[in-house]
């Protein structure tokens, strides 16, 4: 055995050596002591065995520590220089162990640390003076680090005994691995320019990737790993990384928000957020940076440009119905808490587009259809892109309410007429279900209207016409519309309309009791039969007067033309005129003759003649021909009349609204409003006794359910003062007092 084996005592062995004089080092200590105790028990003779201490303490060779360290140092150097380790690793391990046993661990640790420190310095010096740039440089850095780590693992393996005993038991010193990291870390912190070169270089690579090039992301991953391992990530890397990220996206945002169209821009932003928040984080950036990184991108690409995005993009996207992009916009803007702004734009846009539909008088005839289509479009946008957001729904309602009422009275009138056109017979295009859903949608528009009285007036008049002329397409649909309005506005609103249905029922009962058996009547006998009916009615109902509505009367007549028999649906006036031509004494009649014979007033007569001689079914001939009726015209029976259908409706003029009728209906509404204003003023004054003008006006606006102008209210107040319902206060002329 060599000298080395002497020094290779295990701690137990050494201890025993001091106590017992067994000197054969090759003997296993345990078996030896067993043998001894066995002897003591078996031999009866008390033969004393005296165990004495060594006379001379065993000594280590004088330069044992230095020499051992030298060998260890050589091995460390070899590892650090990528050379073959000269001795077996096991021997080296033992040497380390022995040094520890001889209480030399402290110095050993210090020496090892010095070696490592020197090495780190050298390595980092080499990197500092490395002239390579860019990726090549970064690859060297990464390689250096990888090598260093491997070396430290190796060194630690050799010095494992030191690591496990001395280091663990002493407080305040790092384990070998941590020591390696610490040395590298402090050295790197000192080498500021090298550090910056690595950091900036890495960020350059990231920027390259952001610009669309492919990069070696595993290289970046290992570089960033270095910072994370050295606990330098937040201190050294993150801040510059975020700063450069901000610069990058600030300039990108400013450029793209103007150059791209909004759909492209938003898609780009979405892509960026995915790249940064998912791909980059997965690839190499530490997840702890994710919130800051995402926030930066949002701030630079979205928050700074919210106004531009909305100003430039919202209206066109809404007009083009780009739901996908609008949904994206909604999602992105909600990330930067800009939904309120989006909602404002939504509101303004609706008001603008809707206002254009409502105020354009040339498009009155299609206003309601346009509004319905527009509402449907917005509804679907609301559902598909704005996530059924109730605030957006409210904005929509506000916008509709605001623009529908931006033009007074007309929208209400047109909605009423639209409903009339759908409930009239001859409108066979829709099934019951379609009609029902259409009515529901119209009712939503109706809900926005402030002046519901205008709607009511026109609706009532049209309903009366439908019922009286038998033109209602379906009583079920009428009743359903009625019940919808009832739920919407309460029974007070519909009671008059319901009354009409009751009247029709009463009339049907009545008519079943009254039969005129002679239906073949010349025109002058018609008045007679009206008289007959009147008497019949009086006999049924005491104390009443009957007023005929001849302009709404209509007949079914059978006409025999040389080319075939026809059944004509005609108004009463048309019937009277046609009956004149039954008279064989004349073959033509002048306008004035007809007027004299029928007693129909001019406007009505010329309308009637026009419908008979200038419309689609010309059962009369006009001389001279033309579209308009003049008082100099003459009329004769058209014996060449033909038509493909057997039943002909010529009385559609009755359903048409005349200008006078329209004015009358409107005036009725305004008259009614005046009464309501009067009543409201008196009601308020009666409770308040005395009130200033402004207070009165305010209370009125709260009470009245239709839009009124302050000037109109003033007129009503004047009128009430004239009629002595109230008076001005004597000392304060801007206040009023109620007169009981």
């Amino acid at each position, binding site marked *: 055995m060599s000298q080395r084996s002497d020094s290779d005592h295990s701690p137990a062995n050494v201890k025993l050596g001091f106590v017992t004089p067994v000197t054969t080092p090759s003997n296993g200590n345990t078996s030896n002591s067993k043998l001894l105790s066995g002897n003591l028990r078996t031999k009866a003779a008390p033969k004393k065995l005296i165990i004495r201490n060594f006379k001379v303490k065993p000594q280590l060779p004088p330069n044992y520590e230095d020499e051992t360290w030298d060998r260890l140092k050589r091995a460390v150097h070899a590892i650090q220089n990528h050379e073959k380790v000269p001795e077996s690793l096991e021997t080296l391990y033992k040497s380390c162990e022995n040094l520890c046993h001889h209480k030399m661990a402290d110095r050993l640790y210090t020496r090892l640390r010095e070696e490592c420190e020197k090495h780190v310095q050298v390595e980092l010096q080499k990197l500092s003076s490395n002239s390579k740039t860019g990726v090549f440089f970064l690859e060297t850095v990464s390689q250096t680090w990888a090598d260093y780590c491997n070396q430290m693992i190796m060194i630690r393996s050799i010095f494992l005994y030191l690591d496990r005993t001395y280091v663990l038991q002493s407080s305040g010193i790092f384990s070998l691995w941590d020591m390696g990291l610490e040395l590298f870390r402090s050295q790197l912190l000192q080498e500021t320019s090298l550090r910056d070169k690595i950091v900036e270089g890495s960020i350059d690579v990231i920027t390259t990737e952001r610009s669309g090039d492919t990069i070696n992301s595993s290289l970046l991953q290992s570089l960033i790993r270095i910072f994370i391992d050295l606990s330098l990530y937040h201190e050294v890397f993150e801040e510059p990384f975020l700063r450069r990220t901000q610069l990058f996206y600030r300039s990108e945002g400013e450029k793209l928000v103007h150059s791209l169209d909004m759909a492209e821009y938003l898609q780009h932003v979405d892509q960026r957020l995915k790249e940064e928040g998912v791909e980059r984080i997965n690839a190499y950036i530490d997840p702890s940076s994710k919130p800051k990184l995402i926030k930066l991108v949002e701030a630079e690409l979205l928050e700074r440009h919210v106004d531009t995005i909305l100003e430039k993009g919202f209206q066109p996207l809404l007009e083009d119905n780009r739901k996908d992009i609008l949904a994206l916009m909604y999602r992105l803007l909600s990330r930067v808490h800009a939904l309120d702004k989006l909602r404002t734009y939504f509101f303004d846009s609706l008001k603008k587009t809707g206002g254009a539909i409502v105020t354009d008088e040339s498009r009155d005839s299609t206003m309601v259809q346009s509004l319905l289509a527009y509402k449907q479009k917005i509804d679907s946008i609301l559902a598909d892109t704005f996530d059924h957001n109730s605030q957006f729904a409210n904005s929509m309602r506000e916008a509709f309410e605001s623009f529908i009422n931006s033009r007074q009275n007309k929208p209400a009138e047109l909605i009423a007429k639209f409903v009339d056109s759908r409930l009239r017979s001859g409108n066979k295009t829709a099934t019951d279900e379609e009609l029902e859903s259409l009515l529901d949608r119209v009712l939503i528009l109706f809900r926005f209207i402030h002046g519901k009285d205008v709607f009511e007036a026109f609706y009532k008049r049209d309903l009366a016409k439908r019922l009286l002329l038998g033109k209602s397409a379906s009583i079920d649909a009428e009743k359903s519309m009625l019940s919808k309005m009832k739920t919407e506005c309460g029974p007070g609103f519909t009671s008059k309309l319901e009354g009409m249905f009751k009247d029709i029922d009463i009339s049907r009962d009545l008519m079943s009791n009254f039969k005129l058996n002679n239906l*073949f009547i010349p025109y002058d006998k018609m008045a007679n039969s009206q008289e007959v009916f009147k008497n019949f009615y009086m006999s049924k109902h005491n104390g009443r007067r009957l007023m005929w509505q001849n302009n709404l009367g209509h007949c079914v007549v059978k006409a025999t033309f040389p080319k075939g028999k026809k059944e004509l649906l005609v108004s009463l006036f048309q019937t009277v005129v046609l009956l004149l031509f039954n008279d064989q004494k004349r*073959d033509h009649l002048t306008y004035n003759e007809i007027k004299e014979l029928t007693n129909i007033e001019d406007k009505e007569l010329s309308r009637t003649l026009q419908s008979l001689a200038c419309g689609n079914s010309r059962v009369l001939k006009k001389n001279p021909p033309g579209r308009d009726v003049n008082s100099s015209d003459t009329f004769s029976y058209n*014996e060449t009349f033909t038509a493909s259908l057997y039943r002909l409706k010529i009385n559609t003029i009755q359903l048409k609204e005349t200008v006078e009728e329209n004015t009358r209906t409107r005036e009725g509404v305004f008259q009614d409003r005046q009464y309501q204003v009067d009543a409201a003023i008196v009601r308020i004054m009666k409770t308040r006794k005395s009130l200033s003008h402004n207070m009165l006006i305010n209370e009125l606006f709260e009470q009245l359910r239709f839009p009124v102008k302050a000037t109109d209210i003033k007129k009503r107040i004047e009128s009430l003062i004239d009629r002595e319902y109230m008076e001005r206060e004597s000392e304060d002329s801007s206040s009023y007092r109620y007169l009981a």
Partner: protein
Amino acid sequence: MGRSRSRPLSLTMKIKVNTWTVPAYWSWDVENEDVCGICQVAYDACCPTCTVPGDGCPLIWGECSHVFHMHCLIKWLNAPNSQEQCPMDRTPWKTAAAHS
């Protein structure tokens, strides 16, 4: 209706009225804008307890020629101090058999 001999048939129209519908409205057979002596509301409107005028709120004529909303009069006649007299002239109330 006879056939004309002097003129060709084709020059006259043969129109036969099959049905004839004319709407009419009715009002109470009283002076316009006159009011019920009990409630002071127009005859053509309704009594204070009804909401719609018409068949639901009829008038009633007395033999004394006074007219009231039927509801108003019934309420009056049921009152203890009415003594079943016409409120206008204090003659015993008799409903007219038929209004002329």
